[in-house]
């Protein structure tokens, strides 16, 4: 099993229990180069594969069998280098602040336009990650 992210291949894990939304997400991100998207129906099955070192995890706050907060804590405990992006319909600023303080990378509010914005966020993030990898390599 490939458990590394090279310069040419970045794993992005997505937890989306809604098949349609999962499909839309996959479609919107497939144009992006050098990424491999893995979609999970629930948090537990995703956590079991965290050893594969995804660079990004995308999750909703409302998940089957686990709260979004618990998921973020678990991911951060296993590997704090994994960037967590939350995509949710919640528009509560104290909830967002609390999630941010837990160490999430970004919070996106669900809307028609959010998939496009998510794409930009991921593109920018991958540039940062690639840049960091180059610095480490040169050192």
């Amino acid at each position, binding site marked *: 099993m490939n458990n590394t992210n090279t310069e040419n291949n970045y794993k992005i894990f997505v937890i989306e229990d809604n098949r349609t939304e999962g499909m839309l997400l996959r479609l919107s991100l497939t144009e992006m180069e050098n990424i491999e998207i893995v979609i999970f129906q629930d948090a537990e099955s995703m956590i079991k594969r965290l050893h594969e070192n995804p660079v990004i995890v995308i999750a909703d706050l409302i998940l089957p069998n686990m709260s979004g907060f618990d998921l973020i804590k678990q991911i951060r405990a296993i590997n704090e280098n994994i960037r967590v992006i939350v995509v949710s319909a919640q*528009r*509560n*600023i104290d909830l967002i*602040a609390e999630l941010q*303080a837990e*160490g999430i990378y970004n919070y996106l509010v669900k*809307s028609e*336009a959010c998939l496009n*914005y998510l794409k930009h966020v991921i593109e920018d993030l991958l540039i940062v990650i690639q840049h960091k990898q180059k610095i480490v390599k040169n050192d």
Partner: protein
Amino acid sequence: MNIMYKAILPVLLVLLWACGGKVAEEETAREDSVAQNSTKDSANMITNEQSNNPIIEKNTTKKENLNDNQGKVDKIGNQSNTDSIIGKPMDTQISEATGKPKKDLVPSLPEMIKVKGGTFKMGSKDPEAKDDEVNIHEVSVDDFFIGKFEVTVAQFKSFIEATNYQTEAEKIGKSYIYTGSWKNMKGITWRHDARGNLRPESEYDHPVIHVSWNDAMAYCKWLSEQTKKPYRLLTEAEWEFAARGGLQSKGYKYSGSNNIDETAWYIGSSQDKGTFPAGTKKPNELGIYDLSGNVYEWCADWYDSEYYLNSPAQNPKGAEDGISRVVRGGSWHDTAEKNRVASRFNGNPSYCGYNIGFRVARSR
């Protein structure tokens, strides 16, 4: 002659001393009288505020609060004696060199703009619109007054100095900051900036942050007592009507422009650095600044994501109850879509952080 002079001089001195003493006594009596009246006004204000604010009652006794305020009482008394000056709108002048309001001309109390009431379509079907804003519905609001700027650090400081009020961040002991990552940081209060640094006085013209909805309400109550005018927070409908430019609306996406860079301090224009001085971007059609961007603004209403489905058409005042209050306008840390005039957010009334302040309103 010499003998006569020697005899009269002591008598004259005694007379002079007696008269001078009397004048001095009268002056002292007048000062006492002013001080007592001021103390009474101040006492009433603090007592009333406490009776409506269980948080204060929990933390300080009325007596303690009065004693703590003794040194600040004269200031309150003087202010209430010059109510006409306080109530008079002051035109903030903008420096040509910096484009910022001149520091010495920034009024210590909010400058108000009268908004002529009217009917408008509330909500939006922008591509960025969220579920809670897509039910566009017609709403009418009466005339009201709105703060030309978000309440500044200097204005909030006047309130704190006059009342010794303890903000929620001070009571909880922390508030959220942003320094590239986010933290709920100990010791952060309204005196700090978004990154948690203590603000220098040169930044007192920025909108105040690290204040909760409850703090904003306490400020409105104090301001009402001082000015004898009923200050309050805006209703969500008033906020959106004003942000859209009221009866002079040009239908902009952001308050004052479709080009967010010219009208708002948002994540792009602020470069994610923090708040900016109030009123340093283009105002909207009504001459109101920063309705989009700089800091989120607490509104009076309880938030309900489905409120637009059953909102009354005349002067809606939000859900009857709820767990969070309406928050509007986006902030320096937010993307453009959250700074739209129709974008709705909400927050727990005790939340305080790096991105939220408030603006005052009154009906008359």
